[in-house]
């Protein structure tokens, strides 16, 4: 399931310059085709648009009638307001939750990549007893549900008073992300030309040097792909944050949003702004780096 197999040299997202005579491949009624695609796109977009539109409406308006009613008079600017954002960011703690999410996500993305890159290098270019067995273990662990970790780790962390700290979450995400990171990076490194690495060794370069000055620069596409993957995963995670970080001073956006839904479930205007703030960074990353993200997905996508 995590095979790199489907990564053909085409951009699966489509786009300019890669459409040979393909447009003529099938010749069913193209009106039907367009209508179906348009309908599906509409279905996919409408819920998100509803959220976005609602987040700029006043509390009364959100609670009174459907968001779609704005389209009757979209240019009536008095109906648009940033009140919900103001209230969510400053009164409901979404602002500080946003910062916390960054504090959690950046190290939880960078640290496992570094550790996994070293390991992937060893799995690819070094020989040592137990190598193949260890790697099979990594492959097997790709599908193990995260839930296995929590009961023992909660106890372990509470012994060292780590529950509720960022360190606990960083370590946990680094551990949980490790199998996929090693798997993706090792598969990529195995496709690099071995001769270059071998000739570096002949020239007397140490493994440490070869790793930093040759293999890491050559592996940038895979590193970036995994980084985006892990970033989105950690940012969007609720389970790990819920159990190891919880609510309070260090809470992240997903926890904050959950509390908005739970405690203030009827405060619809707050929900919309809160949800949108929690989504804005991953959406930006997603649109800016879609190409890398797609590559990461096609390279491997099972996550424990």
């Amino acid at each position: 399931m995590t095979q790199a197999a489907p990564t053909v040299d085409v951009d699966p997202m489509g786009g300019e310059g890669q459409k040979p005579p393909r447009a003529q491949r099938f010749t069913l009624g193209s009106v039907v085709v367009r209508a179906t695609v348009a309908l599906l796109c509409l279905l996919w977009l409408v819920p998100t648009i509803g959220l976005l539109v609602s987040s700029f409406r006043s509390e009364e308006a959100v609670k009174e009638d459907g968001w779609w009613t704005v389209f009757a008079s979209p240019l009536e600017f008095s109906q648009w307001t940033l009140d919900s954002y103001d209230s969510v960011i400053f009164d409901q703690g979404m602002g500080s939750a946003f910062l916390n999410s960054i504090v959690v996500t950046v190290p939880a993305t960078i640290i496992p990549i570094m550790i996994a890159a070293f390991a992937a290098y060893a799995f690819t270019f070094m020989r040592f007893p137990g190598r193949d067995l260890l790697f099979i273990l990594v492959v097997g662990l790709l599908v193990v549900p995260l839930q296995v970790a929590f009961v023992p780790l909660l106890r372990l962390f509470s012994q060292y008073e780590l529950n509720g700290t960022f360190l606990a979450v960083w370590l946990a995400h680094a551990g949980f992300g490790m199998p996929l990171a090693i798997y993706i990076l090792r598969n990529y490194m195995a496709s690099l030309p071995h001769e270059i690495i071998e000739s570096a060794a002949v020239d007397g370069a140490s493994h440490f040097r070869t790793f930093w000055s040759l293999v890491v620069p050559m592996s940038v596409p895979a590193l970036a792909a995994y980084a985006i993957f892990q970033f989105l995963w950690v940012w969007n995670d609720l389970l790990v944050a819920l159990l190891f970080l919880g609510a309070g001073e260090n809470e992240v956006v997903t926890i904050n949003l959950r509390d908005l839904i739970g405690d203030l479930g009827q405060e619809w205007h707050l929900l919309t702004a809160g949800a949108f703030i929690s989504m804005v960074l991953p959406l930006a990353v997603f649109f800016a780096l879609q190409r890398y993200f797609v590559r990461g997905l096609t390279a491997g996508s099972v996550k424990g």
Partner: protein
Amino acid sequence: MIKLINAALAIVAGVGGMLALFWILNAIVERLPGRWEERLKPYVFIGPAVALVGLFLVYPAVQTVIYSFADKNSQKWVGFENYKALWNDDNFRSALLNNLLWILVVPAVSVVIGLLIAVLADRLRPTSEKVAKSVIFMPMAISFVGASTIWRFVYDTRFAEGDEQIGLLSAITTGLGFDPVSWLRLDAWNVNDFLLMAIMIWLQAGFAMVLLSAAVKGVPEDTLEAARIDGANELQIFFRVVVPQIWPTVIVVFTTVLILVMKVFDIVYVMTGGNADTDVVANIFVEELIEFGDDGRAAAVVVVLMIAVIPVMIYQVRRFRMQEAGR
């Protein structure tokens, strides 16, 4: 502001600490006599990774199995009591059935929709294709909690006389003259389960589309041409030529979504809290652990999940070995 500075410091310390660790370990090993250096160095490289995987996945997995045979605080052995209790718990059995339903529906529908978009958008103009695919793909960046919030605006229902519907679905159905329905409590025919599954499908179809699209575009032109010359129509070409060639990818997508579905709890947790017969196994784990504080039962739930995953794991390892053999 102080928070930001602390954050930056934490990031530098965390990342720098890791780098220093590798550098020091490496420096120590390089000072050893030649043969020992060669022997030990691989373990310096994989050491931290193995330690993390061991500490955060392997050790807890073993420990969880042990805890599942002990009472709620792991003070005394209870044999299979936790498993028996789960089995006799109506809620857990209904969750198992719900999970089965999720497993049957979500991966299959995601694959079908993903494939539909992949094939249809392939026939649009490049710009339209890109836009259409981005739209379907976008939810991949949204968290389960975020998605749940979005869909609350679809499923909400108002009952009070004179209240306008603010939920899209209810607005449509009441607009058509039906009585308002509390969608997420509607457990007849598992309607509420299907509505929750729709959220998951909404999130995952883009993933299916991306992988299947790459596969469809990779189908060699001459195989299609040959079928055409033999007089096959487009549907025949699709089912007899395209589908068999992309089948491995279909399996990959299917199993990936399947694994995800088995352990996802966020949607149910946020939308219904498992009420109205919508509970799933992964959510029961959270309930047992947080609400009831019963570590023994929570561990037993995880063991059930682990057992369910084993066939996929075996399949995964076998596939990997075949792939390596061909490398």
